């Protein structure tokens, strides 16, 4: 546990020392701000983040989170620092969890900055706190899943660009395309594609429902990708 805390501190520190994290935060805030300003923040519209979160937040996170996770492991492999890490008394699981949580805490900071929008809305009309909480729970779970996928692809390549492109492609497929693709196939592939459709699972959180099914989907898929990342790091020792 102590090792995980040490890793989280180191990863968060690395974020604040690297220009990429600032650029990514700027892009995130600009994009969500644009979606909020044009879509929600106007006369007669509903005083909730619904239209922002229904589509735009997902799209933005598909692009923003892989940019946060791409360097987590691939940079260690490229620069060789992975050798110092894997010869210190810390397990692969602790390394992966520490890196995951470091990125997740950074993501929470971004979400915290996004609270500005409901505060703005509240000055013009009543914002439903329960709905907002529900939206945020959805975003936590969505972010955790995306970060675990990004971390996995970061463990797959020593090139950040390859890691980020694979993550983009995979997340876009999982989030937006799998429902459509499911219509084109039969049998178990259809069931699988329907099951992994992130958009479908996320939709209830947008509407203000916390369904345990969806919570379990997000948590287990996140755990699966973290597990795969640990296995991938263990495997690369042999190469």
């Amino acid at each position, binding site marked *: 546990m*102590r*090792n995980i805390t*040490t890793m989280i*501190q*180191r990863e968060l*520190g*690395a974020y604040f*020392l*690297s220009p990429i994290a600032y650029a990514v935060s700027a892009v995130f805030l600009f994009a969500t701000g644009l979606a909020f300003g044009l879509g929600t923040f106007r006369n007669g519209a509903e005083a909730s983040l619904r239209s922002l979160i229904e589509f735009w937040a997902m799209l933005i996170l598909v692009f923003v989170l892989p940019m946060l996770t791409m360097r987590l492991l691939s940079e260690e492999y490229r*620069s*060789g*620092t992975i*050798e*110092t890490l*894997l*010869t*210190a*008394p*810390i*397990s692969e699981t602790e390394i992966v969890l520490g890196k995951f949580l470091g990125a997740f805490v950074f993501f929470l900071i971004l979400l915290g900055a996004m609270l500005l929008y409901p505060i703005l809305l509240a000055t013009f009309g009543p914002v439903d706190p329960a709905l907002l909480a529900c939206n945020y729970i959805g975003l936590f779970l969505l972010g955790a899943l995306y970060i675990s996928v990004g971390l996995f692809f970061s463990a797959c390549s020593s090139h950040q660009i390859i890691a980020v492109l694979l993550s983009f492609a995979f997340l876009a497929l999982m989030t937006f395309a799998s429902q459509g693709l499911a219509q084109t196939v039969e049998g178990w592939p259809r069931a699988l594609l329907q099951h992994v459709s992130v958009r479908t699972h996320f939709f209830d959180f947008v509407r203000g429902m916390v369904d345990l099914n969806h919570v379990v989907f997000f948590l287990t898929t996140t755990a699966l990708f973290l597990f795969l990342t640990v296995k991938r790091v263990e495997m690369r*020792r*042999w*190469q």
Partner: protein
Amino acid sequence: MIQVTNLTKRYGPVLAVDDVSFHVERGGVVGFLGPNGAGKTTTLRILSCYQPATRGSATVRGFDVFGQSMEVRRLVGYLPESAPLYPEMRSREYLNFRGKLRGMDSQECRAAINRVTERCWLGEFIDRPIGHLSKGMKQRVGLADAIMHNPEVLILDEPTIGLDPVQIRETRNLIKELGEDHTILLSSHILHEVEQTCDRTIIIAAGRIVATGSPQELRDQLSAKARVVAEVQGPIEEVRGAVQGLEGVLNVEATSSDGWVRLAVEPEPQRDVREALFRLTASKSWTLRELRREGATLEDFFVQVTARQQQAVIHTDNR
């Protein structure tokens, strides 16, 4: 302290380390010497628990590097080749991070950082971002990290590579100093360095150990086989016959050039035939203008054994 038994490592079809066995006693500096690609880094990586071996075993103070990896990692300080570091961190932050990974609390970290800053002459560079440091300074930060938890065993992969001559001398002195209370295994492809810093040398080529011993022992092994070279003025066949007839001479090669006969004499091991050779030429009134034992440097030995080993490998491949 370190015991390596029948260690083999394959990367796919490539055999990097081939059935290597050796041991390192407590205390002192042991040099791991070999040409590039001989399997030095691979062996050190197995010992530092970075990579598992394909076959064979390795233990550090009785702990198996594969089965009891965490214990070994706590005992060992490891400096990988070219000292990889995080460029965005300051040296102090980096060492603090490394100290915490090894289970030190903030106070212990601070004390350890002060100690290694002094030991590795980091000075004011301790508060600079690592990305701004020179190659030599980075190497020192890496070394500082390796000795921070006062490990019983230090494994250093090419600790002086990329340093300037002054830094090389400083690093060698530091290693010698550290050798007084740590067991050090270091790799190098520079013979001179191993000769200067190490108490014992293990020569490895093409994944196999070809010789071990102190630099002095290796030199003795070599001088036992030293040839004697002489230049004599006289009839070539007669000279050859007479020298061949001397006691202790195994073989003579004679070549003639502008009236002089050049002799290369191979004596029996541990035998010096120079005196007998001089008496012979004096009694026959042949003029002798050169008489010497051919250079017995560690360098020749190194080139000899590694070349022989590599040839052997080529032969096996052809078969």
